[in-house]
């Protein structure tokens, strides 16, 4: 993790200081856009789901790094060749590992991540319902009378 952090930092610095690139390019460039609007829309959706591997937590769609541009072109290439969205993602995971996905796959241990929110909600809801039921004590259940001690104290306070 730390090693990768530094690698990313080094790359970010290299990019920031203009390593190769003439200046801040924009993320999606006009020459990348596909002629078919439906296909282009799908490409945009897909690239929003992909992490730019050399950037600091940016999606491929947002980033202006060269790597992100390559990935955007690659995604479009696959789409033009007729891949489905899932096939494109599978292809990329195959090449770059699941680190490239911003929406983690719901399999294996990742199920913990996906299930944790609903599980926590059910748990919290259950606990609070139990609590609420317990707070709903009827007046009868409360001690009706004062104890001897309290009676004495009350007398004392009232000054009799």
């Amino acid at each position: 993790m730390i090693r990768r952090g530094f690698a990313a930092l080094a790359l970010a610095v290299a990019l920031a200081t203009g390593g190769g690139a003439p200046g801040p390019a924009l993320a999606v460039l006009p020459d990348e856009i596909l002629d078919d609007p439906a296909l282009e829309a799908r490409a945009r959706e897909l690239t929003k789901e992909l992490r730019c591997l050399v950037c600091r937590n940016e999606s491929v769609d947002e980033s202006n790094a060269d790597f992100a541009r390559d990935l955007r072109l690659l995604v479009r290439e696959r789409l033009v060749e007729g891949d489905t969205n899932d096939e494109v993602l599978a292809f990329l995971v195959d090449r770059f590992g699941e680190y490239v996905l911003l929406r983690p796959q719901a399999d294996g241990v990742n199920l913990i991540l996906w299930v944790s929110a609903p599980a926590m909600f059910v748990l919290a809801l259950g606990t609070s319902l139990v609590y609420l039921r317990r707070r709903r004590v009827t007046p009868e259940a409360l001690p009706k009378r004062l104890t001897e001690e309290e009676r004495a104290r009350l007398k004392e306070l009232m000054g009799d």
Partner: protein
Amino acid sequence: MIVELGHFAMILAFAIALAQAVIPLVGAHKGWHDWMAVAHPMATTQFLLTAFAFAALTYAFVTSDFSVSLVVSNSHTAKPLIYKISGVWGNHEGSMLLWVLILTLFGAAAAWFGGNLPATLRARVLAVQSAVAASFFAFTIFTSNPFIRMTVPPLDGRDLNPLLQDIGLALHPPFLYVGYVGLSMAFSFAIAALIEGRVDAAWGRWVRPWTLAAWVFLTIGIALGSWWAYYELGWGGFWFWDPVENASFMPWLFATALLHSAIVVEKREALKSWTILLAILAFGFSLIGTFIVRSGLLTSVHAFAMDPERGIFILMILVAFMGGALTLFAVRSQAMEAKGVFGTVSRESGLVMNNVLLAVSSFVVFVGTIWPLVAEMVFDRVLSVGPPFFNMAFTPFFVALAAILPIGALLPWKRGDLRRTMQPLWPVLVLSMAVGSLVWAIQTGHSALGPVGALLGVWVVLGSAVDLWSRTGRGAFAKRFARLFRLPRADWGKSIAHAGVGVTVFAVAGLMAWETEDIRVAYLGEPFEHAGYTLTLQDVRRVQGPNYTSTMAFIDVERDGRFIDQLTPERRFYPVAGMPTTEAAIDYGFIRDVYLVIGDPQDDGGWTVRTYIKPFANWLWAGCIIMALGGFLSLSDRRYRVAAGARRQPTPPKGPKTVAAE
């Protein structure tokens, strides 16, 4: 010389913080009044010394004293004065000094305004607050000292990161830190109460103003950060679910939950141990946030201090305070027996649901944020968790929260009747459904996001208005209307803050659902159309800024033949930092922003231009400001004026007045 004095003042403040963390605590335990009383002057002195240290560092930045290492790496003589000042906290070391400054300010404020607290509670609060301050003084002095001198001072500095040379940055951290650090007050009160073994309505009333103040600043701080990202980072995103953003969002969610549960403690003496736990968690999460931001453990777009050693130090602070607090909580929380009894349908239950949803949504954010770390360390899977996950996992809880908000706000305390509560809300529900369907009909072909956002927005805003109106009681319209303006400010604050939530929910949904984008190569003098707007690139010029050079485009924006604005998006280059930036140009509007970005020149003489229409963008920040405004109004209510009670009554107040119950 001044820098050395500042350095010395900081060390002295650290020594006082250490003493103040111990002496009043012993005094409170033994019942020694002079030992307790010493906390007051100590807190004041600590603050004054830290303020002096901060002023000394600011002086070094303003006078460009390049013998100070921090000034060299974050400043430059040519930098405008305002960014020389904001540069003080635009870096790790200086921002830590700001952090301790705010910590000691809160400590001192507790001493100044805490006159109506019982002596032992006040002593303990101040001691705990000072212990927190001491640990951060140690962190600052031993790992991130801002006053280190250079052996050989250079002729000029290396300049501040250009992205940070911005008014948004000048304001964002101070607000955020006041929020983060303000939660330490709730924490100190919680620990003090656990030590005392007593939580009652009065405690709830003392804790609320501090939490509310912290919450208001946190809200503004987050909104400023989001706004800054929106106009500065060049593609108009306002929230990226980045670890650093989540770090500020989790404490906000917990603080919001705490605000609401403290009401139950204050009015009904129930939910005591839960409220204490929330107070601990709220500050705990602001420490976790600090850890995430400063350690660089999670890759973030905003991180500016990647240093594992510092991370470990903060982790130690976190473990010590949270471990201690939670142990104390486990031992003592049983003693907090709740008193209030209430039905399942009641305001109390509504607030419990609010807490469940806020706590769970915060938990979602937490799990998503640390999951990459856990997956890699424990399960050896390298993966990312990004916006698609958070949007999916987080949204349902916030939708549920907005859905129950107006109902919960209107339910009476103790025992409610759902049918009677819903009576004034039915028209609102029908209206919001109608608006939702109308939006659905108009927007053909978009997702359900927009209509749902519109429905919830109208529901929450009008529901809040109904809530306020219902406070005016019965009678003729004119009478009720007159009464409206005599309502306690807390009532206004509540409704306004809730309405702010509605506005924000609507704006987020609208912006995400209806944003449009156009990317093209534009040529000088050749107009192009996007979403009903005609844009013409008139000119591209080189402009010299104070510490940068800029390529500035002049683009005319017209609609239906009517000239709207000339926008000047820029690409800047900061030679000292060697860094290029894009400066978007925005025509702010009531229902939409026109957002323009200029890119690279093309070989054929054209320029890459990106045009966005961002609907309701301003509503997003307006909603946050409305929330904060509600908080301010509530805070200014005389019932919560912390010092007001002290002057009038020498004895501690016995409990809350229930007259103007919310």
